[in-house]
């Protein structure tokens, strides 16, 4: 990966005007899909992602059911118009992998043994992609799962950190992802203090790795507050205010 300098200016501001420890603007709306049992829409910077949760429901095909627990199924998909050049709608290897790591990031928070022989389906659709869509997707998916009333032991928050111009920064955006040095997406359960997703692309020294991990977890805790607010807003918030916002 070629390093292009000046992704951070003299004042320590990044390409989109943020400081090193600042998240992009995040908005989460809960219950935006009528037919779904739970749903969420997240705007994470320029990412626009909808998540729908169906279930617990009967498993088809039936042989996939497990006698002692529920199965979780997860599909991460990017709409053809979500990227600069049109994305072929057929699932790419990247999407297959992200679907898998996403499911594995969500499973530790779910009490799947409460719904034996059933399935929970999580559909993540990226309408517009910016950097960090898997983290945004996970954050929205765990809100949607909570909205569906699935028994959970924690909410999974997610946020990436990375290296830009040899500095560790929070929440890498698209430009920084393509030009920068390293990208590390992390999903984290704030109450259980456990990491459920960890990936790294790019070079980090031992000290940078520790700094990066701590930074990402700090970001996850900020994302968690926004997730919590979104859920509170739906279930305890002022209803008229909510209607105004959705219009």
């Amino acid at each position, binding site marked *: 990966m070629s390093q292009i300098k000046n992704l951070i200016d003299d004042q320590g501001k990044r390409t989109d005007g943020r400081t090193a420890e600042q998240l992009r603007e995040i908005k989460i709306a809960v219950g935006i899909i009528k037919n779904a049992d739970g749903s969420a829409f997240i705007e994470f910077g320029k990412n626009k992602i909808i998540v729908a949760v169906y279930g617990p429901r009967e498993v088809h095909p039936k042989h996939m059911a497990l006698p002692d627990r529920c199965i979780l199924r997860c599909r991460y998909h990017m709409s053809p118009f979500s990227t600069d050049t049109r994305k072929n709608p057929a699932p790419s*290897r990247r999407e297959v992998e992200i*679907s898998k*790591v996403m*499911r594995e990031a969500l499973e530790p928070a779910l009490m799947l043994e409460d719904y034996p022989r059933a399935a929970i389906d999580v559909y993540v659709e990226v309408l517009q992609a910016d950097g960090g869509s898997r983290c945004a997707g996970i954050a929205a998916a765990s809100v949607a799962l909570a909205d569906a009333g699935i028994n959970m032991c924690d909410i999974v928050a997610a946020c990436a950190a990375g290296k830009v111009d040899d500095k560790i920064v929070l929440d890498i955006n698209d430009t920084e992802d393509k030009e920068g040095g390293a990208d590390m997406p992390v999903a984290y*359960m704030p109450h259980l203090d*456990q990491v459920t997703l960890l*990936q790294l692309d790019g070079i980090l020294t031992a000290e940078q790795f520790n700094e990066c*991990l701590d930074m990402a977890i700090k970001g996850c805790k900020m994302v968690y507050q926004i997730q919590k607010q979104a859920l509170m807003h739906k279930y305890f918030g002022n209803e008229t205010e909510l209607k105004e916002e959705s219009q």
Partner: protein
Amino acid sequence: MSSSKRSTLIVEHLRKQQMWESISKGKRLDGRNLDEMRPVEIELDIIKKANGSAKVKIGDSEIVAGVKVETGEPFEGLENKGALILSAEVLPTASPYIEPGPPDEETVELARVVDRGIRESEMIDLDKLVLIPGKVVYTIFVDCSIINADGNLFDATSYAVVSALISSRIPVFEIQDDGKAVDTGKTQDPPITTMPVSITAVRIGETVILDPTAEEEACMDARITITTNSNNEYAAIQKGFTGAFTVPQVKKAAEIARIKGEEVRAKLKELTHKSG
């Protein structure tokens, strides 16, 4: 779509208990220490038709990797770099639970994680593999076949790819007047810059062990694969499986990956040098 599935290899409950008990005492069922790896065996140049090849055994896990070099168009957005394409297939020979067919998500993950380690560490200097910038570049294919699976396929496949690449001799192509690339019949060493080493740790209960066997993988709660380069920096990480890690567990695993990575790197260097 990604779906939770029944584990293919089912370990009896009694055996599981034995494993937990043994691990809590610091010994594994096959007698290894918690951070001890199985012996690594490498045979180089076993496929004469390939530009480079290696067979790697870690315990009973057995992988063949082959390098084939051709010329082709560069990838979009990477016009001035050679192309590196890595694939992995778990052959139906590998275990009774594998069926022939298109790669499932675990195989896709395996190939992508191994690829990430090679690519992100910039093991091959792709800038040096350009014939006509933007038009014709070297394309290096590394294809891996898992012929027997007994756990830790991530590391075994990664070592096979690294060994095959290091020992390969790639053909020299020349551009003729009509713009076509022609094989000159000569060969050259590939532009290697560093030696990535992947280390996989899994958590069983509260204990983290290295180089799991298939049986141990059937009992694991979570997995993490960490790749370091020759400078002992991290190049790629992938956490896998359905459990979680605490932050101290992640940091400890990362530290172990650096220490063990050095040991394995020395061993790989020695093994690839001897017969190479």
